[in-house]
């Protein structure tokens, strides 16, 4: 018998806004002017949050912090499509998604300031705590989606992770479960092309990360992660598909980590400034400003006004963060279990002067 072709596949890539701000009108999502401007504000707010976090870290007012600089569109664009009833499982570098979803800014500073109370998601928000152990939360998203499916809830479950996370066993296991059970999950990879010092080319031999979905039996798409509307469009479609019973989708947002891995890292040890400079020209906010300007929704005065507003919101968040009294020693114990053992109760008393 001759050899035959068992399968071939294609991988889509989506970009809507060109670097000069012109857009493929057939693909521009049907968002109102107010919504388009709201996205712009969230991009600015993310950048302001991030810049202030770096400054606070330098001053010793928060601890080690992983910057999201350059990834604002991939985070705001995706989170803008998420509904309140959907569930979100973030990793540790999606503060732009957090603030788009309405997570209190002062709590984000609180968490990165070394205070667990920052991880307490407000009631009514279905956002799991930040996951520091890379990729280990991907199966959680599959599990929550399975539960939603069993309950008959028409919601979607989103997991965010990075390119490094795709090398973890939990990535495979979570994807496989979601695929084989047809779960309402949307996996969003922030492919910022660097896992600390390891570039994408040393992370995977795949032409794209998106194509990994094919092996699990569901759709994968690569979007220009610095194009906020492409990210939004792909995410909204995937969420609608998931809520409607169409199964999982994997969205690879191709973007770039403009900053060091964290404030403890020094990227100049392992990558060239020229590479970073190239990506600076593809800045997601700059591109979106050009797009908005062509629609008469943006000018320098408007930008200055919005930057001032974002700065004020950040000032208030920092003030709130720093006015929270430090946690009492006994708080180490308060949420370890529903009920403390006798030994833990004794330890709690000993720890509380």
């Amino acid at each position, binding site marked *: 018998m001759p050899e035959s072709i068992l399968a071939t596949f294609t991988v889509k890539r989506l970009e809507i806004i060109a670097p000069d701000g012109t857009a493929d009108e057939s693909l521009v999502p049907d968002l109102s002017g107010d919504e388009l401007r709201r996205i712009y504000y969230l991009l600015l707010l993310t950048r302001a949050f991030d810049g202030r976090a770096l400054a606070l870290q330098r001053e010793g007012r928060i601890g080690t912090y992983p910057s999201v600089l350059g990834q604002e569109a991939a985070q705001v664009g995706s989170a803008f499509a998420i509904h309140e009833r959907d569930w979100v499982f973030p990793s540790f570098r999606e503060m732009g998604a957090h603030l788009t979803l309405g997570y209190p800014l002062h709590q984000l500073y609180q968490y990165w300031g*070394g205070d667990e109370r920052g991880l307490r998601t407000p009631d009514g928000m279905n956002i799991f705590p930040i996951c520091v152990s890379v990729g280990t939360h991907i199966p959680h998203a599959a599990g929550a989606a399975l539960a939603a499916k069993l309950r008959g809830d028409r919601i979607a479950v989103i997991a965010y992770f990075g390119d*490094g996370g795709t090398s973890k*066993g939990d990535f495979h296991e979570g994807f496989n479960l979601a695929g084989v059970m047809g779960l309402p999950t949307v996996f969003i990879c922030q492919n910022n092309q660097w896992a600390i010092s390891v570039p994408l080319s040393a992370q995977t031999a795949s032409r794209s990360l998106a194509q990994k979905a094919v092996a699990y039996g569901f759709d994968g798409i690569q979007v220009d992660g610095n194009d906020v509307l492409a990210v939004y469009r792909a995410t909204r479609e995937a969420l609608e598909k998931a809520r409607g019973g169409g199964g999982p989708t994997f969205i690879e947002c191709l973007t770039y980590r403009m900053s060091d891995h964290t404030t403890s890292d020094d990227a100049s*040890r392992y990558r060239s400034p020229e590479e970073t400079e190239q990506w600076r020209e593809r800045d997601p906010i700059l591109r979106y400003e050009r797009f908005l300007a062509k629609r008469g929704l943006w000018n320098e005065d408007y930008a200055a006004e919005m930057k001032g507003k974002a700065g004020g919101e950040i000032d208030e968040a920092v003030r709130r963060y720093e006015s929270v009294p*430090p946690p009492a020693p006994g708080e180490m114990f308060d949420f370890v279990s529903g009920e403390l053992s006798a030994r*833990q109760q004794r330890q709690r008393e000993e720890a509380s002067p």
Partner: protein
Amino acid sequence: MTQLNMVQAINLALREEMARDDRVVLLGEDVGRDGGVFRVTEGLFEEFGPERVIDTPLSESAIVGAAVGMAAYGLRPVAEIQFLGFIYAAFDQLFTHAARIRTRSRGRFTAPLVVRTPYGAGIKAPELHEESTEAFFCHMPGVKVVVPSGPYNAKGLLMAAIRDPDPVLFLEPTRLYRMVKEEVPEGEYTLPLGKARIARPGGAVTVVAWGSMLQRVMKAVEGYDAEVIDPMTLSPFDGETLLDSVKKTGRLVVVHEAPLTCGLGAEIAATVAQEAILHLRGPIIRVAGPDVPVPLAKLIDHYLPSPERIRAALDEVLQY
């Protein structure tokens, strides 16, 4: 001789072992071009090349699992897990495979590998970067667990670990990485695994501590007639040195930053209770972290055994 900190001493041990034995290969996340997130492998990529200092994908299970295969094939892999808190994805590889390949193959295959990993609290790092779960690994027959306490013994212990015929988990106390410098000779010397050292001689009470707690204990016992034991290897534990000391002092305090319940202090206390109870003058006291997940920076000082708690334990046992 040169004054080195622990990072430099470990780096020197790796460099000398790699020069001595071309079977020694490093692998892990960011160990190559970046030189490791704590710079422990700095310069080795440049000196030995990418085939001997291997930057892996972000895959702890693959790092330890591959080390098992490399070791069985005849290499001497030294794997790095970036922080102990990230080792759990590789737990299966360590427990199910590295620890028992010799047993399961009846000696036909072995796993002479080292897994190095920074561990312990007190560097104000994010979640899972300050774990101290050494007891999990001491509960793995077939795996040795080593904790250096200073630059000199770090080098000698790591050289011994690399030459050991079985898997060794080498826990490097992050808080001590750059805290002190000591004279560290160039060239070969090994310190035997499974052998404790008397860090400070004394007669009235025995105190056992390792990692960064040892350093805290050494300060806390000033003014006390305390004998301090630095086990250096946690598994197998040097019972002889422990028992000799307790038989002399009649009192025992164990200090560790890991949670109290089922921490290694329990095993040490049980050994003394079983082997030397008639020599004890008072209760064995464990000073340990409470039974909670390691908290973030704002509460870590309330979590770690404080000098005051250590001295209170000494005062209590010395009443007997």
